[in-house]
């Protein structure tokens, strides 16, 4: 059997731009975080066009063992969320299955020189040689980026954390696992408030789990969580301390005649994202992305097919576990285009206004620096064009689960297994 050369630890598990888009953080299966910074566009190097370079890297989480439960805790970074920048430092939250950490990233580009009592190496001077006093001055030095863990929020979750979300109040954040959601204060690590608990009294009665959760971008009292049954629940923290009772339930009615063994599995929502406007929600389930209007609970206002041709492959996708893959979704800055990943290193974009969509590929072979991405097409039999890929030759090990869109510009970050692609697009001219 051929051996896999890919190092498991290098698999990227999350990608996130900060609020200005200047920084891009990635987390991987080995518990490491790499932060990229966009270089300012300079007149001297017009070709650099604000490219992203490595800014800092650090080990966020280590593998642990829970002796009480005989459970191994993976160091894989599930999610990274940036805090809004409040001073010169940058802060982010990173989480694995069990523990959330607050990291502070600071820059040092000056150092004091000219001490009276110490020499340049820091050794104490012979005081008899000191004849006059000098005032130390700050001299420039090579930029040093320092990262330190400021808070560790541990022991808050029995089950596996799937989401974290910073509140618009910039003081609190939430963490969600399969059955519970906790509210934390960013400065307090020894306690958290449980705000959602869907654990049944008898685990035999378990029918659904929490799959993703997010705070509303503007209303600090509202948050949404999605379930494995395909429903969304909007909760209001002002209504009650424990938000088990939802304020709104968003669920698309199912056609009972179309129900199959796979129906519930493929309806499981793998990601939910509020639009920047706060008016809409975007969800991803196995085959589609859907846009929901917060004012309409009965059904989504838009549904886009990501790869409907997989419907006739569900049996083998179930056997290979691919049917349980958790794809993420993203909005562009103006909420007019949505993006999500697929298989074969393909990712899809849907323009909500023109209703046009495009399939693009993230791979070394198909994209050279500064070349225009060529739209791809999957054919399902019938007329086949020259560069089409047939459904049967799709590589299901090449999945694009994690994607991120710059908050303001047309810059996207695509994680293809262990490679990170950053695409900058001038105009959406390639939509067909």
């Amino acid at each position, binding site marked *: 059997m051929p051996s896999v050369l890919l190092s498991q*630890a*290098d698999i990227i598990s999350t990608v996130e731009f900060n609020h200005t888009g200047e920084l891009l953080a990635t987390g991987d299966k080995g518990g490491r975080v790499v932060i990229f910074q966009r270089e300012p566009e300079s007149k001297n190097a017009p070709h650099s066009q604000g490219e992203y370079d490595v800014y800092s*890297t650090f080990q966020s989480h280590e593998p642990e063992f829970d002796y009480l439960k005989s*459970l191994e805790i993976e160091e894989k970074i599930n999610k990274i969320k940036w805090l809004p920048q409040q001073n010169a430092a940058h802060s982010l939250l990173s989480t694995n299955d069990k523990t959330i950490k607050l990291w502070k990233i600071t820059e040092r580009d000056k150092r004091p020189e000219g001490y009276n009592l110490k020499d340049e190496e820091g050794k104490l001077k012979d005081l008899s040689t000191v004849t006059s006093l000098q005032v130390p001055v700050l001299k420039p030095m090579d930029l040093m980026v320092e990262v330190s863990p400021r808070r560790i929020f541990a022991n808050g979750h029995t089950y596996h954390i799937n989401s974290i979300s910073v509140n618009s109040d910039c003081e609190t954040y939430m963490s969600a696992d399969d059955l519970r959601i906790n509210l934390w204060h960013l400065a307090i690590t020894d306690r958290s408030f449980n705000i959602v608990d869907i654990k049944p009294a008898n685990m035999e009665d*378990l029918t659904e789990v929490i799959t993703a959760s997010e705070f509303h971008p503007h209303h600090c009292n509202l948050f949404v969580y999605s379930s*494995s049954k395909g429903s969304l629940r909007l909760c209001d923290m002002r209504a009650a301390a424990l938000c088990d009772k939802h304020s709104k339930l968003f669920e698309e009615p199912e056609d009972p005649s179309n129900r*199959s063994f*796979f129906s*519930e599995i493929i309806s499981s929502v793998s990601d939910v994202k509020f639009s920047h406007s706060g008016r809409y929600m975007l969800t991803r389930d196995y085959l589609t992305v859907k846009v929901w209007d917060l004012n309409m609970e009965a059904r989504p206002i838009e549904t886009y097919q990501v790869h409907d041709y997989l419907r006739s492959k*569900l049996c083998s996708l179930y056997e290979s576990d691919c049917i349980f893959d958790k794809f993420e979704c993203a909005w562009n800055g103006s909420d007019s285009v949505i993006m999500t990943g697929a298989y074969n290193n393909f990712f899809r974009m849907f323009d909500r206004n023109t209703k046009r969509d495009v399939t693009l590929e993230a791979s070394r072979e198909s994209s050279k620096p500064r070349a225009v991405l060529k739209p791809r097409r999957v054919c399902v039999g019938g007329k086949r064009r020259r560069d089409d890929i047939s459904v049967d030759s799709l590589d299901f090990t090449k999945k694009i689960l994690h994607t991120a869109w710059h908050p303001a510009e047309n810059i996207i970050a695509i994680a293809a297994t262990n490679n990170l692609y950053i695409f900058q697009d001038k105009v959406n001219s390639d939509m067909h």
Partner: protein
Amino acid sequence: IIYLKLFQEMEDKVTSPEKAEEAKLKARYPHLGQKPGGSDFLRKRLQKGQKYFDSGDYNMAKAKMKNKQLPAAAPDKTEVTGDHIPTPQDLPQRKPSLVASKLAG
């Protein structure tokens, strides 16, 4: 009447690729649970990462397996309990975390 029912079934298969896939799956795994995506599947999801049952079981198995050759741990959908209990030798070696990420260049 039987003819019409057969026709309806065939139509179902033609109009619903999903139902055809379901039939394929049921043919391969006739004992597949009646409640798809129900408690069994969810409970397995909640137990992700469980490597050991408890130390009592671990020691019992070690004593039992003393003279037997341990079968290689096959990663499959069934829970790892019973006769095969992972020993430290079975577990894949962890890569030391000091190695820097490839992305950091």
